[in-house]
């Protein structure tokens, strides 16, 4: 039997006031009418806790767009786990935050698009920057730990020093600087988002310096297309965390819905524990037996688990292939071609369309 999961990423809704072109949500956003009800989400939390989940990441879209968020927080908070609110900050007021905190929010993760107001608002597609400053101040004043999360790409990577300074001024305890991972809307906008090697080198040096001196914990997520080895995606398929989409689809990772024939199951049809332990989708790439060469005989398989199944599917058409960003993959030249073609020419950014 598989080990119990530690974390549940609950995508409560795909509705969001922002339109970020790097959003990890799928291109086909779940409509409001298809979202799980309050009772259904509470049942998901109960089932997740019984399964062993200790971290509840309430995310989206924008979780504040759910009117029943206070009830959902209270339910998750009452189960003894850790409740993490992942928010754009838009719609957060002192009163709402005090209420949510009282009901069990333990930690707030706030997205920031850039340190330069005009560029931040351009990336978000709406005037969001000033709301972020307000939201950060409210979280700090409420005494809650604050993580600032910034997705990095060609259009903000040169501002990483200013972004670190902004997070410090905001009073963040943690700063996550995550280079864009190319799924969902980000894959569609890859040619507008991929940074150059020179941008990454400069940013990497600035981040390394900041880590030496900053009081914040700074997490840096690599730009995997530019690396020689893949990321340890999810620390293994169906190993530590699961995602429940707004409509109840249960996924090994937020992007897994893209893999054709995976046989995604829904929590409306089958209990969460059965899906985690017994479903075809969660067992498809567990452990090492599914691997082919060059992963099968590679010592690094214990480090990176063969990389990302979704990326293998998206770039090679077969989810069981080695992640093609790996320098040992026979398909790596195709990634190099993407880098050569898509980091040089200017490209327009398609904004994420808001689901209604």
């Amino acid at each position, binding site marked *: 039997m598989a080990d119990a999961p530690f974390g549940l990423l609950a995508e409560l809704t795909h509705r969001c006031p922002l339109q970020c072109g790097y959003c990890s949500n799928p291109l086909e956003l779940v409509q409001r009418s298809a979202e799980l009800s309050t009772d259904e989400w509470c049942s998901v939390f109960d089932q997740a806790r019984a*399964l062993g989940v*200790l971290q509840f990441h309430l995310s989206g879209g924008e979780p504040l767009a759910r009117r029943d968020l206070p009830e959902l927080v209270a339910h998750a908070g009452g189960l003894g786990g*850790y409740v993490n609110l992942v928010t754009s900050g838009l719609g957060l007021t002192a009163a709402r935050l005090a209420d949510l905190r009282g009901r069990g929010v*333990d930690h707030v*993760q706030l997205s920031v698009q850039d340190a330069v107001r005009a560029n931040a608002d351009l990336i978000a597609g709406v005037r969001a920057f000033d709301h972020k400053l307000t939201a950060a101040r409210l979280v700090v004043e409420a005494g809650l*730990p604050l*993580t600032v999360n910034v997705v990095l790409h060609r259009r903000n990577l040169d501002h990483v020093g200013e972004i670190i300074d902004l997070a410090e001024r905001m009073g963040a*305890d943690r700063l996550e600087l995550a280079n864009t991972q190319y799924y969902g809307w980000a894959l569609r906008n890859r040619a507008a988002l991929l940074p150059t090697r020179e941008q990454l080198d400069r940013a990497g040096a600035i981040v390394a310096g900041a880590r030496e001196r900053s009081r914040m*914990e700074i997490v840096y997520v690599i730009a995997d297309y530019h690396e020689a080895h893949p990321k340890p995606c999810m620390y293994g398929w169906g190993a530590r965390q699961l995602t429940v989409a707004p409509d109840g689809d249960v996924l090994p990772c937020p992007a897994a819905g893209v893999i054709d024939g995976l046989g995604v199951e829904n929590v409306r049809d089958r209990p969460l524990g059965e899906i985690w332990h017994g479903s075809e989708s969660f067992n498809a790439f567990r452990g090492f037996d599914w691997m082919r060469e060059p992963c099968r005989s590679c010592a690094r398989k214990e480090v990176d688990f063969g990389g990302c199944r979704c990326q293998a599917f998206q770039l090679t058409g077969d989810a069981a292939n080695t992640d093609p960003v790996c320098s040992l993959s026979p398909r790596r030249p195709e990634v190099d071609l993407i880098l050569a073609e898509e980091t040089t020419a200017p490209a327009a950014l398609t904004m994420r369309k808001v689901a209604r």
Partner: protein
Amino acid sequence: MTELDATPRLGKGVKTSYDQTRDSHVVLFPEGVLVLNETAAAVVGLCDGRTTITGIAARLAEDFDGVRPEDVAALVARLTARKVVETDG
């Protein structure tokens, strides 16, 4: 290494809980979970910001054999690196 007269406390946003699924005490913090063995759980339980490392070791010695302050200090140092506990200075 943590000094023996340090008085560790739980870090900001850190919670302790008991997990029936794993039959273990756990520490929960932003984006992380630590599953504790019995000794570590006892140490974390005594990280109240008032008790010194020496004091924690003395309390543990009431329930466990062979507890050395140096071992408690080493464990607290590891927990500090994970931001689970904080010590001044």
